[in-house]
Each structure stands twice: as structure tokens, then as C-alpha cells.
């Protein structure tokens, strides 16, 4: 009886000491390298955090890079664009993923900590407005119609489709969209309603885009918006609405997003790179160069739209300005 009890307490102690002996610290942002080329001698770690939209892109780049440079550890977190900048400006990450440009107050936070950075556009996304595949009347919407539908004044008032356009039937409107923490929400409200964060509030918000897919797929009169990849994966149940910003209806696609004709909902995706870390960490330098040079492969793996010729040139210049 007594020995049993001691065995149990001994087991606890043993588990503890085992874990302690296994302890070996490793800092997250140190880097060292034998040669600055793309050789296997590269080692070190790179931390990145930020937008969950850009996360898969940086993950894909990291994965491709690490197959060639197995000594480098790259981690990606998805705290959101704002959360990512917060860590970036505290010096906890060296690469920040963003689905919108840095805001003034975030700049100030970086300045206060002496963090210098370079913004690089790494891919394009087309914010896609989707309706149910069975919907007969929604083919093309003008930006004014979208503003009528999504504007803050529409809350509780615009509830039937014929209020958006008299040609539409008097069916109930059911709306799905990203939650207010999302960079997608920020971008859409800025472009369509003219002010970031200004949106009607009586829609079904979700941080999980798959919920928006389910919602729109289940209701003939529903409408929602999200990144192009979610539409691509669900083309069998959803249809993309063409957008008319004054020059006729344009459907979202890789080409229209790249050449800029899908306006105003085509958006660039950014990474922000810590200049000091870039200079001192050869692994980071190699990784960012790899990211830009292999842009097409990276974008394909993450199912985004790769850079156009001009964008790629700009990205290479931005890379060169990092030193």
C-alpha cells in the first residue's frame, strides 16, 4: 500500500526531471552562416507573423526555401495584420505579413523602437463578391450598388434586392462577410464605402471564410465576399459577381487582378522586412531574395495571383534597396 503511493509520487518526480534534462534553450532570431550564397551552409531562424491571408504565401515560400536550406528554421504565425505589426515593431519578428499597408500609428510604434523596414508587394489577391450558383439575377454589380448594399446607412433599411436595383426581384437580402478584425474587411469597406471600417452591421460576420462559403452556398438570395482562393475552391456552388467601376463589368481572375482591370477590389499583399535583421542575418537575406525570385512558384502553391512584370521589377528594386 505504502510503496504504491510512493511509486505514484516518484512517477510524478521522474516525469519532471526527464523534462528538465531535455531543456535546451534556443533564441528565435539569431542567425549565422558560413557563406552568403544559396549553399547548404546557411543556418539560423526567421520569425514571421501577421495576416492570415498572407500567412499561406510566406509559409509556401518558407517551405520551398527550406527544402534547399535545411539549416534554416522559418516560423509563421497568423495574429492578423495588426497583431503582426505589433510584434514586428517590438522586434520579435523579422518579417511581417500584411494584407494592407502599415498604418500611421503602427509606423510610430516602429519608429519608437528604432525598427526600420521595407515594404515589398509579394502577390495579388482579388476580393471576390460571390452569390449562390442558382441565383438568376446577380451577374454584375456596380460599385455604387455595392455601396448601397454594404454602406453603414443600409443597416436595417436595405433589406430587399429591388432596393439595390429596381430590376432585381423583391427577395430578402442575406449577407455574409468577414469580421471586423480582418484586413479583408478593412480593404473592402475602404474601397467600396469610402472609409475603412464603415459597413452595415446587420450581416453575418465570420472570421472563418469557410462559414461564408457555407452560408452563400445554402441560400439563393445570399451574397458574400472574401479572397479569390476561397472562390476557386468552391466554384461548383458559388458564382463570382462581375464588378463595374465605370468601365464595364469585369470578372475576378488572375489576369484581371494582375493587369489592374479588376478594380477596385484587386489588392496587393505585402511583406515588411526588418532592415537591420536583413543586414545582419544572411539566412533572412537569402530567404527574402528567394521569395521575390520564385514569386510565381510561391503564389501558385498558396493559390494567389503572382506579380505582374512591372510589380516584379518594383519588388526587385525594393529588395535591392534593402542592401
Amino acid at each position: 500500500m505504502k510503496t504504491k503511493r510512493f511509486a505514484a509520487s516518484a512517477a510524478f518526480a521522474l516525469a519532471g526531471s526527464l523534462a528538465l534534462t531535455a531543456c535546451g534553450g534556443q533564441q528565435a532570431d539569431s542567425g549565422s552562416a558560413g557563406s552568403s550564397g544559396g549553399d547548404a551552409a546557411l543556418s539560423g531562424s526567421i520569425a514571421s507573423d501577421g495576416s492570415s491571408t498572407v500567412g499561406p504565401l510566406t509559409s509556401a515560400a518558407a517551405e520551398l526555401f527550406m527544402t534547399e536550406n535545411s539549416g534554416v528554421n522559418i516560423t509563421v504565425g497568423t495574429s492578423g495584420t495588426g497583431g503582426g505589426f505589433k510584434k514586428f515593431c517590438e522586434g520579435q519578428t523579422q518579417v511581417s505579413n500584411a494584407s494592407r499597408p502599415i498604418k500611421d500609428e503602427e509606423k510610430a510604434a516602429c519608429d519608437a523602437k528604432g525598427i526600420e523596414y521595407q515594404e515589398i508587394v509579394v502577390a495579388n489577391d482579388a476580393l471576390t463578391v460571390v452569390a449562390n450558383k442558382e441565383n438568376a439575377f446577380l451577374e454584375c454589380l456596380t460599385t455604387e450598388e455595392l455601396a448601397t448594399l454594404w454602406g453603414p446607412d443600409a443597416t436595417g433599411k436595405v433589406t430587399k434586392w429591388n432596393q439595390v436595383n429596381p430590376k432585381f426581384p423583391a427577395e430578402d437580402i442575406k449577407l455574409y462577410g468577414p469580421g471586423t478584425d480582418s484586413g479583408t474587411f478593412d480593404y473592402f469597406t475602404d474601397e467600396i464605402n469610402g472609409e475603412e471600417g464603415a459597413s452595415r452591421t446587420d450581416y453575418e460576420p465570420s472570421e472563418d471564410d469557410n462559414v461564408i462559403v457555407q452560408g452563400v452556398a445554402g441560400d439563393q438570395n445570399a451574397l458574400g465576399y472574401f479572397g479569390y482562393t476561397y472562390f476557386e475552391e468552391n466554384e461548383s456552388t458559388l458564382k463570382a459577381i462581375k464588378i463595374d467601376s465605370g468601365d464595364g463589368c469585369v470578372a475576378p481572375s488572375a489576369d484581371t487582378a494582375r493587369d489592374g482591370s479588376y478594380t477596385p477590389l484587386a489588392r496587393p499583399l505585402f511583406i515588411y522586412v526588418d532592415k537591420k535583421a536583413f543586414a545582419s542575418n544572411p539566412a533572412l537575406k537569402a530567404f527574402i531574395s528567394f521569395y521575390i525570385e520564385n514569386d510565381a512558384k510561391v503564389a501558385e502553391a498558396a493559390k494567389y495571383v503572382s506579380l505582374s512584370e512591372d510589380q516584379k521589377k518594383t519588388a526587385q528594386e525594393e529588395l535591392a534597396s534593402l542592401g
Partner: protein
Amino acid sequence: MSAVTADQAMPRTPLARAAYGEKDLRSMGFLVVLWLCLAFGILVLAVLLVTTFLDGRERMDGELFTNYTSQIAPETAGARAAILGTAWVILTTALLAIPIGVAAASYLEEFASTRSRFARFVELNVQNLAAVPAIIYGMLAAAAAVAVGIPRNTVIAGGIALALLILPVVIVATREALRAVPQEIRQASLALGATPMQTLARQTLPAAVPGIATGTILALSRAMGEAAPLLLLGGLVFVKFDPNGFLSGFTTMPIQIFDWAARSQVEFQQLAAAASILLLVLVILLNGVAIIIRNKYATAR
């Protein structure tokens, strides 16, 4: 007596038997409502389990255990980093929560006077802390990590957050276990000349181990499924190396599942379902261990 015989003469449907002879319409109706509530709960759970299993069955393979997550090849991606990360974080949690929790409970139960204001203040706080939302502990751990100067998304920070989360549960379970130890054991020990500390370390605590172990394991299995505080700390979603220390970056299974489930590709959703099943099995196993410990000591006594 006549009422009883009338009762016995009634046709005995299972419903009537289960209701212990209550036969008026209102109590029957209430019983049916209760059964429907139970059925609803079980049905929802069954649907959830079955659909998760169907979604994830194709990915319940070896690669789930051996491979890291992958953006390029989601069809062969796995949860290796998440499984090991969960193990590391839960071990850290146990190392922090068990000694502190057991010590605090021993003080409150064995040494502190019930009259002392300090003890009552601590007791009230322990009870209140048990009801604090998990994410608050994440914020606290994040603040602590920043104050000490370690990166937030490290195993140790995650362990601190989860340890704070389960500490009240560990303290309450330990106090219950200590209270169940017969007073005579302490008295005998003291009468034989042992100091109060020796009594606690050699008699009372060992006698309370089964209760402490059961409560602690259940608390740890709760911590295992927790994502919110770790997400707040910036738990990573893309890790392609094994965690190798308390200051190593990490991901855990709930975080990885959360990330996969929100992806657009079907492969990731299958992975999320498969990993959910794995997590469920691990939690059931842990709870099973707790039950075995409890039963073993119950019969031994």
C-alpha cells in the same frame, strides 16, 4: 396500502417504471422532455463525431504523425510539430501547475487557520479564478513574458498561461483529496514525534496522491484542448521543426486545427478533422488514465 396495490396493478411501461411510479400526466410529460433533452445532447455529439470521422478518415494515416504541415503538399501534410508542441507545453504546464498547486493547497488545508483573513482572501480568489475566461490568462502570460523579456510565442510562455488556467482546479482537487485523508493519520504521525512538515510529506500527501492525480490529469486534459490563450500569445501555425527547449517556438494541436479548418483547400479541412480525432483520442486516453488511477486506489483502500 390500497393505493400501492392500485399502482402495482397498473400496466408497467418502461416509462412508468423509470418514473418511480409517478403516473400523472404532468410528470410523464416532464420525463419525456428530460429524455428529449438527453437525446438531443447525445445526437448532436454523435453527429459531430461521425461527420468529423468521415471528413478525417482518409487522413488518419502515418503521415499525420510523422510529417510536418505543408503548404505545397497538403495531401501528405501532418501534425508532427503540433503533437510534439502539445507534449512540450503540457509537460511545462504540469511542471509549473502541480508543485505550485499542491503547495498552495497544502498550506490552505493543513497550515492556514480558517480564521485568518489572508487564508480566506486567498480562498475566495482561487474560487473566482476558476471562473475567469481562458483568454485572460493568455493576456496575463503575454504581459509576464514581455516583462521578463522572453519572446511570447515560446513553450515556457504557453506553459505559464495554461498553468495559470488550471491552477485553481489543481488547488481545489488537492484540497478535496487532503480533506479526505483521515484525521487519525495526522494525529498518529504527530504523536510519534513527526514535525508537521514530516507529517505532510510522509503521511498526508502520499495518502492523497490518487485524488490529486485524478484532479490534475483532468485539468491537464482540459488545458490540452485549449487554443484561445495560446493564440493570444501568438502560437505559430507554420513550424517545420521539433520544439527543442523551453524557449523554442511552438504550435499545438488546437492551434493547428484552428488554422487548417479556416483554409480554403479541402485537403486542409480533412487534415483538421483527422487531427481533431487524434486530439479527442488523446484527451479520452488521459481521462481514462485518471479513471484507472481512481479505481485502483479505491479498491486498494
